[in-house]
């Protein structure tokens, strides 16, 4: 418990973790895996199904809902302009300050 208290950032009560919503244009994807490999949060995996050209496009991995930090690296690394993120429109309850999370 004491350790958890020490590790809490001083501004934890006011700072919100940014969260992103992932948008995909499935038919543009050519399955290069750049977005999947270089996502710092390992949010993305290949789809089970394929797009019209037969490529597995990225989808949010099972259990990774809410993990996207909206860093937008997938947006800018994708050579096909097939994925982007925007800040999630969460209610404050759905996106609580760090202090509440660590209770």
């Amino acid at each position: 418990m004491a350790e958890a208290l020490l590790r809490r950032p001083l501004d934890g009560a006011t700072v919100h973790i940014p969260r992103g919503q992932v948008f995909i244009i499935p038919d543009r994807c050519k399955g290069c895996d750049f977005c999947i490999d270089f996502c710092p949060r390992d949010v993305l995996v290949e789809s089970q199904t394929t797009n019209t050209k037969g490529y597995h496009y990225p989808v949010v991995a099972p259990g990774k809902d809410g993990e996207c930090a909206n860093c937008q690296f997938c947006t800018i690394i994708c050579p096909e302009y097939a994925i982007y993120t925007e800040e999630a429109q969460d209610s404050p309850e759905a996106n609580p300050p760090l202090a509440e999370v660590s209770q």
Partner: protein
Amino acid sequence: MAEIAVASHPIDAVLRRDRLPHIWCPGCGIGAVMACYARAILESGIPLDKHICVSGIGCSARVPGYMNLDTYHTTHGRAIPFATGLKLVNPELQVTVFSGDGDLFAIGGNHFIHAARRNIDINVFCVNNFNYGMTGGQAGPTTPMGSFTTTTPYGNVEPPFNLAALAAACGAVFVARWTALHVRQAQEAMQRAMQKKGFAFVEIVAPCPVSFGKSNDIGEGVDEMWMYRKQCVVNDDADVTKIDVTMGKEAELVVGNFLDIERPAYMGYGKEVLGEA
């Protein structure tokens, strides 16, 4: 929050959407580099109708066909003289040459060295994928020694150009090298090039898995991107003469914004010598 399927992308604002998807192979780096250029344009503060994109011939040179600007796809090697003419006639334009290593440094090499020497106020963005991708993977002036291409089946025996050193030696006032993985840094370098008065050169090392990666035991595009992640060293202060790109399995690949100096641009000399028109 699962993903949401949509039909368009924010970058489409500066692309010819009806031409997408583009022709580049899966895992090719050119698409990511084109997006750096597109974002640099959007962030430049310069109106879209002042941006001009000129290329020669090659896979990289297909970029103007996808940019929703005034663009020119010229003949092989001749993008720089074409761009020079545009800039001299209309100095208000923000003229960018976007092309490949073969187009700019083999058939077009002479134009590059003289435009840099004259300090023509244009930007040259070169996708260096170490070969002639479009025509089936022949060796060119940037192919590393020992590399296997369709014209070097026993390994390349010619030493390649170090493009950053070449540009600096010829007189460029801004010289940078990044990779297709360094998308934020490459975009920033492109914006700096646009702000720069004079000849600004940005090399972007990029995967061509089809014609270079696979024959050189690098693998797919994503494998070459991992190579950049592991082997790139950022050093803005590097001595440009000592940063050859070898693509060796353990070798450092030095990237950075190496040179940013002031020198009168060609149009400046024109006014001094000729006076106002």
